Structure formats: structure tokens, C-alpha cells
């Protein structure tokens, strides 16, 4: 609903100022913009949300990238008079749910150590916290090619200080400096190019992803390493580690993207790959052998030789 008039019953059930998620905006940014639009201190909206829902979870531990049911987005959607789906779109809930084929993806499927860092230029231009900037391995802004900042020039870290009740939204909890005024440091072009590859992979999985695609990606990694005759890969953090993956549904997306980028593979490689998928039976199966002297099976009471395999 674009505009609410004073005769509309929604007038009384919505916040004085409404905000709606913008394309690619992160949920935390929407919540902080709501605080700012309503002249509230940082964290007022989310605290009100948690209190109303009777949730006593720690604000700073609340996952706003893959929110759980303890964060009642439907309530917030009501106060803003926006569809709940619009708020969910400011997280990676839809994308991860489709990719892993589960209704409520576990935060570990994406998260490899979340840390808060912001692009001062995005904030300066449009008070924008992009959701892609919270993805693992992302250290610079793809729009402004500047390093993201995770601490204030005064030395205070933003870690677990997204919402700070005594300060204005989008400001340092210690000195009050606007995040938009944080240091602006041009990123190394090599790093920008690397992160472009990382984001391309994320974008590929988020837009086309399915569990089948995850399985194919794992298969591509296995075959590539076999062809290159390597067992270890130099990861994005610089460390060379042996690559082992379990099943697709347990594979962390951040780690998968790490290995794919480290192996210099592209989504086109995966799309061009037409080799059949590895397969195995889901259940224990019994194979019967009609040859009475078969050396691979054992006779049962009826004299038929069989072996149970997985």
C-alpha cells in the first residue's frame, strides 16, 4: 500500500513513518531506516518487535540474514503496511530455502562467521546497507570498489553493535560518528575482481539454485581436482587445505563458493558440465545371485545366494 490516508484504519496500526525495503537492501538496514524515519534511537524498532512478540533473544545475536521464527517479521510488516514477503526478500531466506530445498534453512548453511561491516559510500548516498555485503568473503563494495569498514575511526568495532539504544541509527555507539563518515579506502582492483567472481557464484546459486545444482557443483569440484591431480586447494583466506565435502544438503554455501572460486571455475563451467550425476541407492538392497557357487554372495536357508550392499 503506497499511501495511507487518515481515514484508513491502518493509520492507527502503522508506525508514524513507514519504510519499505529497497531492492537488494538488507533487513537490518530497513529496521535502522525505520528507527531513523521515526526519530527513534537505534534499535527501538527491533526492541519493540521483540517485546511485542514476547521474545527475549539477544538483539545482537539475532540473525538478520537468515532470520528464525523468533523474529516475527509479520508483525513488523503490519506496522509498516508492507507485505511480509517484501521483508523476507531483504534476507536470504527465500534463496537458501530454494537452494537447499528446506523451508527453514539453518543459518550455518550460509554463515561462515558473520561480521558487520559497512560501505560508507552506500550510506552516504542513500543510507543503504546492501544484503550482499554481509555474505561471507565479501570485503569490498561491488558498487563503489571501496573496502568495507568494520570499525569507527575512534577505534570502536561495529561487531555486535548494529543496534545501540543510546545512539542514533547508523552511528558509532561510542563517539556518535555517522557510519557514512567512516574511512573511505579504495579497494585493490585484484580484490574487486576476485569478489566479483565470488558474487557471481552467489548470484548464480541464489537465482538458479537447487539441491541438484549443489550436487553438480560438488561433482564438478571432484572431477576438476581429479583432472588437475590435486587434493588440496588454496582457499580464499590463503590457506591450503584438503577439500572434502559431505552431501549437498550439508555443504555450506560459503565454503562451496570458496572452493569454486579458488579452483577458478565459473558458473558457465557448471552449466556446460553434462556428465551424469553420481548416484547411489537410498536404502539397503539385497542382490540375489542364481549361481550356487558365486564367491561374492552367501547362501541363505533356501539355498539362494545373496549379499546385502549399500
Amino acid at each position, binding site marked *: *500500500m*503506497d*499511501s*495511507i*490516508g*487518515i*481515514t484508513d484504519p491502518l*493509520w*492507527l*496500526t*502503522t*508506525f*508514524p*513513518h*513507514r*519504510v*519499505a525495503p529497497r531492492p537488494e537492501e538488507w533487513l537490518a538496514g530497513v529496521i535502522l*531506516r525505520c528507527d531513523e*524515519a*521515526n*526519530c*527513534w*534511537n537505534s534499535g*527501538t*524498532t527491533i*526492541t*519493540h518487535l521483540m*517485546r511485542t512478540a514476547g521474545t527475549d533473544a539477544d538483539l545482537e545475536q539475532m540473525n538478520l540474514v537468515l532470520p528464525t521464527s523468533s523474529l516475527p517479521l509479520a508483525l513488523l510488516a503490519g*506496522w509498516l*503496511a*508492507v507485505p511480509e514477503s517484501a521483508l523476507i526478500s531483504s534476507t536470504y531466506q527465500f534463496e537458501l530455502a530454494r537452494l537447499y530445498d528446506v523451508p527453514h534453512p539453518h543459518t550455518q548453511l550460509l554463515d561462515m562467521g558473520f561480521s558487520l561491516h559497512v560501505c560508507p559510500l552506500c550510506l552516504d548516498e542513500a543510507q543503504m546497507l546492501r544484503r550482499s555485503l554481509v555474505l561471507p568473503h565479501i570485503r569490498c563494495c561491488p558498487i563503489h570498489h571501496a573496502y568495507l569498514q568494520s570499525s569507527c575511526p575512534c577505534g570502536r568495532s561495529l561487531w555486535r553493535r548494529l543496534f545501540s539504544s543510546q545512539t542514533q541509527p547508523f552511528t558509532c555507539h561510542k563517539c556518535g560518528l555517522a557510519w557514512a563518515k567512516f574511512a573511505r579506502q579504495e579497494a585493490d582492483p585484484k580484490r574487486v575482481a576476485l569478489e566479483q567472481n565470488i558474487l557471481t557464484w552467489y548470484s548464480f546459486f541464489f537465482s538458479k539454485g537447487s539441491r541438484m545444482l549443489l550436487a553438480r557443483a560438488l561433482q564438478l569440484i571432484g572431477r576438476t581436482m581429479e583432472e588437475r591431480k590435486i587434493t588440496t586447494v588454496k582457499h580464499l583466506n590463503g590457506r591450503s587445505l584438503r577439500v572434502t565435502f559431505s552431501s549437498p544438503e550439508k555443504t555450506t554455501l560459503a565454503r562451496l563458493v570458496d572452493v569454486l572460486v579458488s579452483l577458478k571455475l565459473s558458473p558457465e563451467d557448471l552449466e556446460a558440465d553434462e556428465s551424469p550425476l553420481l548416484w547411489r541407492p537410498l536404502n539397503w538392497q539385497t542382490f540375489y545371485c542364481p549361481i550356487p557357487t558365486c564367491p561374492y554372495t552367501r547362501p541363505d536357508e533356501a539355498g539362494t545366494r545373496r549379499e546385502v550392499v549399500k
Partner: protein
Amino acid sequence: MTDTPRAPFTVQKVFLETAFEQRFQGILRHAWQNRSWHVIAAAPGSGKSLGIQDLVIRSGAQKNIQGISYLPVLAIRAPKNTAREQALGMAFSAAFGAIPSMVWHARRIWLAAVMAKVQVECIIIDDAQDLTLSQLAFLKELTDNLAAPPHGRQVGLCLVAAHSGNVVPFKETFANPEILWRQFRRRMDTERPYCVVLGQTEEEVRHILTTCEEIYRPQLPHLQLDRWTKPIFTWLTHSVLDPDATGRVTMDHLMRLLTSALRRAYEQGTSDVDAACLEAVAELMILRRDEVTQIDEILSAPPPPTQEVG
């Protein structure tokens, strides 16, 4: 052929822009446009609250999704049964919609900020005769804060009160020598600080009756009300209904008389009201208005209309 039961009589809920409303809204608009302060009094039942409501509805108030809200006319009703300034603050807060809980010192600062942000131009307080001295002091503080930097916003103020006799509300209070009241008095409009808006004259009653003919003609096709202007005006200026001998009619009395008479006529199956019907209702309102009715049976109400299905 069967007789179709007549639908129950329907009282039309409309706002009539009567001469009283034009006078009353005129002074409200004057305050809005000139940011002037007035005490506006009128007899109980004149239509003050409806007039305020109509003005607010047509003021263009809206909350849009871009985080911009507009509430040029902020109208509230004075809190009842409490002398605390917080109650007035809560009444103001509620006019904006859903608000998180806030400590009082934070709320009084927030109120000035949000009023500036939604561009309040005029504050109207209905039933202002219920305001206490501490609430008036808070009102002065709030408007002073709005006028001071960083907001720099002058607002009009209308204290709308019901009055009787020759006593104009607040006149004595603001005439007190204390600094607070002298400051309050200084802010009042120079030319019309205290206004008493008079009720309907006989000619104005005629206009209202003519309009009501149009409104109720679908239910009473041969309705001719204007011919009863004189007796209606005489009845409604009887000392029982006009104890201050203003020689004016209030909208509440006029509509009570009309709707009761029209309902009676409709239920009797006629298509117009007659003198007897009007006189009977007037007698009820004037001579028997304090009559106690002993109820020892279930009042017959028309059953809801039923419809055969299938």
C-alpha cells in the same frame, strides 16, 4: 402477490456543512493558515467534534511508503480523569499510529521531533475544558520546543471547548499574573483570542431542513420539511433546550428531532412527516425529556432480514 416487508428506517450518517460548521471551520482554518492561537467555544452538541473530524479528513494527512508522512492538522481529544501531563503526551502520540513504549522524558522530546517531521501546522484539542493546568503548561513547552531550533516551526493552536452561559473557558486562567499564563496569553491571537461560535439561526435551520429533504427522500418520497421551520425553531429554542437563551439551535437537538420524527413517520407507513408527529417528538424532548421509563418487557426490535438460500 405478497406484501414485501419494508426495510427498517436508516439514519443517514453524513456531515452537513451547515452555517455553524462554516463559522467554526472558518476560525479553525484561520488558526491553521496564520499559525494563530485561539480558544474556541460553542454550546454542547453544536457539531464541534464533527467539524474537527471533517477538517482533519480533508487536511491531506497521509503516510507514504517512502518514509514521508504528512499530518498538517493534529487533532486530539483532551484526556479525561487524569491531571498528568503524560496523559496529554500519550494522546498526542496515539494520533500518529503505533508507537513503541518510551520513558516520559524521551517521549516529550520525541513528540516535538515527530511533530516537526510530519509537518504539523495546527494543533486542535477538542474538549479542551478538561485540560488541567499541568497539561496546558506541557502544551506550551511542546509548542515552544517546536518553535525553537532545530525545528523552527510555529504552529497554530485551537483549544476547542464546550461552554454555557457567558463564561468563556480559559479566559480567567490566562488572565492570571503568573509568568506561565502571561506567556500563554501573549501567544494568543491579537484580534480573536477567544471565540464563541453561535448555533443555527432560523434561516440556517431552513437550509438544513431543505438538505435533509434530499437526503431522506429515498425513504420518504413526499418529504417537505422546510414548511416546518418556524415551529421546529421555536421548539428547539425553548428554555429547556436553550438554557442560555441564545436564540440559536444546536445541530444535535435538530437532528434528534428530525430523525425521531422521520423514523416515526416511516414506521407508520407514511411518505412525509406531519405536524402531530413533529410535535410529539418535540414534546418528548422538551416536556418529557427527563421522564423515567420503566421497562418490564423485551423491546421489540425488527429481526434481521432473512433470505432463502438454495
